[in-house]
């Protein structure tokens, strides 16, 4: 639709007398043509009623409260990540040490054996196991906060 919408078609559009496809066609034009969009609003009696309504006042402290909550939740997530990371590291280390403790060997000897394993590159499977164990934890932490509600939820609510 390269030219403007004529008055008759606009009146039918505003009255809701057009079919779905024709209405969508006109709507696309109105989205791209401020002049016709203004004419449509002027022709719509409901639009005048809406225009008479003042905007509500934003509650004092809304922004500050939201920012403080974001800050607090960020800190809580950092602490949770740190705790989980430490716990995972301790668990992996403890499991490796327990495997190495097959006899009355001192901690120093166990650590030396562990260092030998690191040097020999024999710890690969253990590190892989530890990483795989951490994946579900990371996935849980990365869950989106703004989940998408089902599109039909509102229809059900109605």
């Amino acid at each position: 639709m390269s030219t403007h919408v004529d008055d008759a078609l606009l009146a039918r559009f505003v009255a809701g007398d057009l079919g779905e496809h024709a209405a969508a066609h006109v709507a696309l034009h109105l989205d791209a043509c401020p002049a016709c969009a203004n004419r449509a609003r002027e022709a719509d009696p409901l639009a005048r009623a809406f225009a008479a309504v003042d905007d509500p006042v934003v509650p004092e402290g809304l922004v500050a409260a939201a920012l403080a909550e974001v800050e607090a939740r960020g800190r809580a997530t950092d602490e949770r990540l740190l705790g989980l990371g430490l716990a995972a590291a301790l668990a992996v280390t403890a499991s490796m040490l327990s495997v190495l403790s097959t006899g009355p060997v001192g901690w120093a000897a166990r650590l030396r054996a562990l260092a030998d394993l690191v040097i020999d590159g024999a710890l690969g499977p253990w590190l892989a196991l530890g990483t795989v164990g951490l994946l579900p934890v990371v996935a849980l932490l990365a869950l989106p906060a703004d989940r998408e509600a089902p599109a039909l939820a509102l229809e059900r609510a109605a």
Partner: protein
Amino acid sequence: MRLHDAPHDESAHIALAADGDPTARSWVASRWAAPLHRFCLRMLRDEQDAQEVSQEVLVKLLRALDRYDPQRSFSTWAYGIARNACIDHLRRRRLRTHEPSREVADTSPTPLQEASRAERAERLHEALAEIPPMYREILVLYHFEHLKYTEIAEVLDLPLGTVMNRIFRARGKLRTAYEGRGGVA
């Protein structure tokens, strides 16, 4: 037009806020607090609920900024988050209270009485509260938030034709409710 002020400035602030810049985050929160609160209030029709939900929406929005796709319109993304939060809240409220249809006093004016601007606004709000949320949201997005039809289709995740069909039904229902209160549409 509220939504398209200084888009480059806004996208720069959004990118900085997504990287964790506190000043930019504060800018985004201040920029979006009014539209989101306005939308929530008109959907929920309760000051306290609207404050609670709009704060929740702002928090979600700020925390999800790093997942926002700059190819999409920020406004439709933001209103989408607000819409979902309002739907969830309406559902919880319904479960909690089996929300009764609001009692509406007879506010019909005498034939010669001209309704004041405030009265007309209140009548419109009451009429809006009376129609189902799926129709209310589409009118709020179009008439109060001045979204384009294609933007509304994106927020609601519906084809444009369906949006048009719904908006005409919504207007019809609102007109009936509004005129039932003595408003002239």
